[in-house]
């Protein structure tokens, strides 16, 4: 089978999984931005600095593992993308860290309470223009964004030429997450108690611009889907009173806007969202993917929403790093047993971590092939 035929076969399986139609074999998707270079022998400093090398090494890892798809593909310097997600300074290997160390978010209070009022008055982009130079060198950011703009659409066809599907490109999240990173978590949670109206006014003002940006990024990347991220807004982190006001309404609007543009929302949700899984019933059926990280109860998800939404996940990072191939095999066996032939794209929970044992990652793919034969 040539690569295009292989691509079409894999794409058809993934689409069937999203639409909750039975598949002959459960598709397997990889995600491991830090693991890929480590696996292929490239220092993380080179991965962070050289976007072309990063793209190539990611494809090489996917080819070596021979999965069906990559969960999400980042084009450009990875730490710059992290900066844009977290609105925080990122410590980068080869710069502030040893050449093969993992990048880290250096979260601290940069945004101030007055910035909520600034956002209301001037908008989200105006705030970013003022905020970003505080966490990243403006020239470096400009150069990186220029590369991303010029090359964003190259990843999907490149992977397709090699027979692999890119499920998501770009990404968007609710204002909660960006503001939480920019304020730092504790301060942001204090704000939710001390100045809820100011925070909400800023969120309401920011959301349309955030949505427009997310749609633009997704279209530029050209994959079928885009990430709709969540981590600090998880059910385990925030009380229902806060969640119902500052979290869920914003997700609803983002999902609605993406679907109107025919973009599949991939709810890349780290942490534990079990308490609020039932709310996923409010989203249009067979249009979205939940992408949890191993902490959300996927059995509960299957029970509550399994007839409405697919799940991409969720082999835990801890198992890849500290477990054994047998642990991985058992996890995949149980997971495929829960979902059967409908609504599962087998993947890692969040990403395969940098220090995953290669034999565990290879066992994950092998187990997916063995237990994924469901027809």
């Amino acid at each position, binding site marked *: 089978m040539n690569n295009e035929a292989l691509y079409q076969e894999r794409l058809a399986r993934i689409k069937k999984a999203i639409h909750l139609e039975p598949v002959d074999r459960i598709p397997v998707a990889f995600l491991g931005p830090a693991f890929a270079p480590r696996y292929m022998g490239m220092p993380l400093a080179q991965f962070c600095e050289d976007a072309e090398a990063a793209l190539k090494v990611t494809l090489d890892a996917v080819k070596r593992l021979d999965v069906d798809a990559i969960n999400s593909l980042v084009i450009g310097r990875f730490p710059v993308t992290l900066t844009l997600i977290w609105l925080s300074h990122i410590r980068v290997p080869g710069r502030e860290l040893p050449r093969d160390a993992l990048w880290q978010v250096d979260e601290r209070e940069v945004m101030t309470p007055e910035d909520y009022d600034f956002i209301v008055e001037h908008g989200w982009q105006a705030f970013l223009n003022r905020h970003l130079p505080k966490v990243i060198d403006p020239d470096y950011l400009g150069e990186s964004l220029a590369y991303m703009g010029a090359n964003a659409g190259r990843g999907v066809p490149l992977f397709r030429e090699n027979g692999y599907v890119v499920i998501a490109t770009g990404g968007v999240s609710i204002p909660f997450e960006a503001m939480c990173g920019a304020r730092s978590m504790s301060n942001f949670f204090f704000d939710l108690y001390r100045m809820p109206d100011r925070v909400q006014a800023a969120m309401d003002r920011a959301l349309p611009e955030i949505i427009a940006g997310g749609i633009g990024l997704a279209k530029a990347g050209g994959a079928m889907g885009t990430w709709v991220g969540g981590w600090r807004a998880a059910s385990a982190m925030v*009380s229902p009173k806060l969640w119902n006001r500052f979290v869920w309404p914003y997700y609803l609007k983002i999902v609605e806007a993406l679907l109107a543009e025919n973009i599949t929302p991939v709810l890349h949700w780290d942490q534990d969202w079990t308490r609020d899984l039932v709310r996923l019933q409010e989203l249009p059926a067979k249009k979205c993917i939940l992408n949890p990280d191993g902490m959300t109860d996927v059995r509960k998800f299957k029970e509550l929403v399994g007839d409405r939404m697919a799940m991409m996940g969720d082999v835990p990072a801890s*198992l890849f790093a*500290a*477990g054994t191939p047998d642990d991985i095999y058992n996890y995949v066996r149980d997971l495929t047993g829960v979902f059967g032939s409908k609504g599962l794209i087998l993947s890692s929970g969040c990403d395969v971590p940098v*220090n995953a044992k290669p034999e565990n990652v290879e066992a994950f793919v092998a187990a997916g092939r063995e237990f994924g034969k469901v027809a």
Partner: protein
Amino acid sequence: MSDQLATAMADLEESTVLKLVRQRLDAGDSPMAILESCREGMIQVGKRFEACEYFVSELIMAGEIFKQSTALLSSRLKTDAIGSRGKVVIGTVKGDIHDIGKNIVVSLLKAANYDVRDLGVDVPPQKVVDAVKETGATVVGLSGLLTIAFDSMKETVAALAAAGLRPKVKVMIGGGAVSQTVQQYAGADAWGTDAQAAVSLCNQWIKEVAK
């Protein structure tokens, strides 16, 4: 609950708590009694967390209100008179700079009347060993968000063993991707999914020592 201050603390009424603390101080109430009211409120916060009425956002807010309250009381409290429940050494392990989860644990442990030596972030194993020797702590808390922290946790537990301290201390780990698998990998005694679990573990271990 026994008084208005404890109730306000449990309900996370920040301005009411601080007002009541000041009022009781001005009225000549004993700082220790005021602190106990705050602690009683914090115990309720923990119970509400365990009952899934409160979540991390509430633990963080409670920790902040408690911290402000104790700041108002600190100049009038004689530290040697307080008598902590036990000593805990805690830190985010080598190679990891994330401290939010660890800081929540520290504030809850302090509110539960533990004497906490917080070593900060990116803490080398030897620093933990030295702190245990200096303080005589019987509990060590190791935090880490990233999976690269697992090896540092393991190295720290090994360093405690090499120093002959392992039989004298209980080691708990927490943060991010930590799990039962990681506990076994690192050789720790327990792991927790949240900050309140750290308090429960300490309470349980201190009781065991007391028997």
